[in-house]
């Protein structure tokens, strides 16, 4: 499903518009990058990025100045993604390009960077939704486990557990690739 439209009919205030314009200027690319990694679909990521900033505009009063704005936006982005997944009930089985080698295949001694990246993409795509979100938030966004826990509405310890699962499965899936 796309950027679903807001269920609320409240009009955005001037203040909300101004804030979200600034936030979009600074964090649009980062939110898009995360959502692209989560969805593995550019169009879906674009729609969800819009949805994220719309939600941020609508919830702008709940952001506490002085706290981590990026983490707050990432939390909204992850929630938007998870909400969409719940609505879709979609099994994540999007094919990767044909030239991606199977992860079980014996790797060449010199792996092209692109091949390894593709294998990693595939392996990440096979992770459970939450494990993938945690791995990305920690690795690429460098959020703390406490912030990640808040983002996925769980505890810091559970976030760590998801990270453990993600790393373990990725190492298994990638085998001798890394």
């Amino acid at each position: 499903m796309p950027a679903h439209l807001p269920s609320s009919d409240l009009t955005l205030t001037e203040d909300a518009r101004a804030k979200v314009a600034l936030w979009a200027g600074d964090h649009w690319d980062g939110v898009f990058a995360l959502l692209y990694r989560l969805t593995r679909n550019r169009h879906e990521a674009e729609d969800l990025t819009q949805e994220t900033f719309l939600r941020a505009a609508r919830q702008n009063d709940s952001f506490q100045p002085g706290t981590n704005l990026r983490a707050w936006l990432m939390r909204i982005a992850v929630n938007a993604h998870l909400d969409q997944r719940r609505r879709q009930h979609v099994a994540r089985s999007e094919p990767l390009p044909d030239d991606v080698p199977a992860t079980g295949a014996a790797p060449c001694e010199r792996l092209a960077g692109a091949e390894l990246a593709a294998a990693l993409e595939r392996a990440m795509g096979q992770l459970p939704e939450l494990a993938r979100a945690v791995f990305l938030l920690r690795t690429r966004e460098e959020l703390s486990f406490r912030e990640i826990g808040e983002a996925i509405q769980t505890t810091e310890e559970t976030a760590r557990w998801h990270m453990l699962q993600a790393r373990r499965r990725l190492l298994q899936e990638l085998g001798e690739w890394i």
Partner: protein
Amino acid sequence: MDCAHIQEQLLCSDDLADAALPADVADHLQTCAACAGVLSRLRRLELEARELPTPDAGNSRDAFLESLAIEQSPARRWVIHPRLARPRAFAAAALILLAIGAAAWYLAAGGASRAQAADVTVDRLLEWNLDLAEADTPEQRARIYSSSAPALQVALNRNWMPADQKQLADKLMANGAWLSSNTDPLDGAERFDEVADLMLKQLQAATTAKQTKAAARIARQYQHVVNRGLGPQLKRAQSVPLDKPERKRRYERLMSRHAELERRMQQLLDRSPNATPKEMRKQLKADSNPERGLETEPSL
């Protein structure tokens, strides 16, 4: 401490740098090649994950800022599809909006017209149809359909449109649903032909009324329909043997209508040389380009 415990600690650690490792783990790693190997692989994994390339977000941010600007009331709130972002226009709009500040921005938003929202809805619907037609596999089509259909339907329901534009939008919505599960190029060409016909009628009305902006927009949309929808579908239909008389008749009828569309376009240009000359001439040039490979005789 055994290897399993050490490796578990590594797998859920915050930071894999040497300095961040607990002393007991660091000590163990000094003497255990297996655990040191796991740490090394984890570091490589994270490095590779951080360096995975991400496509450019393109114009989606500008489109979003633009969508804020045209949002006027709760009844017409919606989101512009990023693929429709026109780079220069939206980039310029974004810069202006940021420069003049939120208050002026809001005032500007209040002045945006319902027609503008309707135009963008039609643009989105058209782009969606063309994306569907260009998708190679049923799976891709299904994904494109499901990723946009609900939002487009909501936008269609919420945005008021003039009757002719509404007719076109409804047709595009229905065609989108059809394209999501049908790939026969002859059927597809017939649907795009109907869309092109409606657009040409709108274009004629706009040029008659000397609505040059509207005419330019419709000419651009028409150009997309012919170049990305009707033309490729006809070409595909041509490559499939038309072994049944009924299909051959339909193909010939489509080719004849295609020629008729070109003739009407030429008439428009002759009659209104100053109305949207660039878009229309471009279209005519494309229509008459022999490299597009459309032949009057179908393969049998």
